């Protein structure tokens, strides 16, 4: 008959994992590397924004109102989505892990509740804005592109939209499961 005392003894008698040599030093190096990567990502994001704006002026998009509105809607929707993700990640990163488990659990539940709002309110609106912007651009595409390339753009966008929707749905399901487990 197994009693908890036996389990405890099995637990403390398990093989020890060796302490990695220079483990503490490697952790400090990793932290420095992550910080450097974050700085690089910020530069890349900034450059992307500059390129997009430059492209906007290069193709004189501002001269064609429908094209301009369409592009702004698509870019705006993407920027909004990326912004929300960055804020969510920052919120996760800044959670106080040194507090009690109960308080930390409440922080996690708060995080997931906010994510639920993002998934069920913000995301559908963003997707609608993005799609509407894309539809606004279609006449301009049809006018200036070959039939083959135009069809390619339409079909590939639909495929991309379906793949992206499935991916988002899977992520939503995973986060909802996380929330449900915390609320058990």
């Amino acid at each position, binding site marked *: *008959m*197994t*009693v*908890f005392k036996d*389990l*405890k003894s*099995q*637990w*403390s*008698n*398990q093989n*020890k*994992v060796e*302490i*990695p040599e220079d*483990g*503490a*030093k490697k*952790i*400090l190096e*990793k*932290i420095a590397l992550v910080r450097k990567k974050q700085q690089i990502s910020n530069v890349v994001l900034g450059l992307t924004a500059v390129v997009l704006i430059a492209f906007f002026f290069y193709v004189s998009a501002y001269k064609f109102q429908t094209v301009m509105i369409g592009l702004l809607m698509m870019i705006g929707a993407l920027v909004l989505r990326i912004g929300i993700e960055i804020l969510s990640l920052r919120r*996760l990163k800044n*959670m106080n*892990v*040194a*507090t*009690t*488990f*109960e*308080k*930390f*659990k409440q922080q*996690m539940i708060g995080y997931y509740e906010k994510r639920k709002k993002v998934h069920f309110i913000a995301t559908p609106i963003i997707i609608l804005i993005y799609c509407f912007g894309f539809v606004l651009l279609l006449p301009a595409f049809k006018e200036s592109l070959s039939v083959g390339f135009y069809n390619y753009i339409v079909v590939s966008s639909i495929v991309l939209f379906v793949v992206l929707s499935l991916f988002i749905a899977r992520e939503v399901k*995973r*986060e909802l499961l*996380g929330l449900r*487990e*915390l609320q*058990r």
Partner: protein
Amino acid sequence: MSELQSRFEAIYHNNYQKIIRVCMGYVNGDEALAKDLTQEVFIKVWKNLASFREEASISTWIYRITVNTCLLQLRKKKYVKGEEAIDKLLVSEENTHSSKEYQLKKMYQCINKLPKESRGIVLLALEGLPQKDIAEIIGVSHEAIRVRIHRIKNSLTKCVQNDSI
């Protein structure tokens, strides 16, 4: 090396073994995943070390960071995949039923059937922490933790005996 860095190194060496053991409990005994989790724990320890005010003992503080970081990290897909893989491994090793390793794996599997909060509590109990310290880590009263520990201990032992939780 700064004073903070030397302090961190000392904390790392003095606590690595116990932290990785707790982390193993969260990932079904998968050493590679537990090492990743342990690394995440120590990253958080480093980031919070400057603000540690000695209101709690260093051990309680580190265990708090451990259970919270594990809860935070277990959202990630790689840890979920790890749990599934070890579950399959256990089924294929049933013929070595009496081995010490099998018993330990069985215990890991049973721990993994518990809700994440109970997992944290039972892992701290297995580490031999006094109930008062566990209550301080979890953030509930001593009386409440006593009842919860009793219930979780029963569930765990029943699972190890009968494979049901």
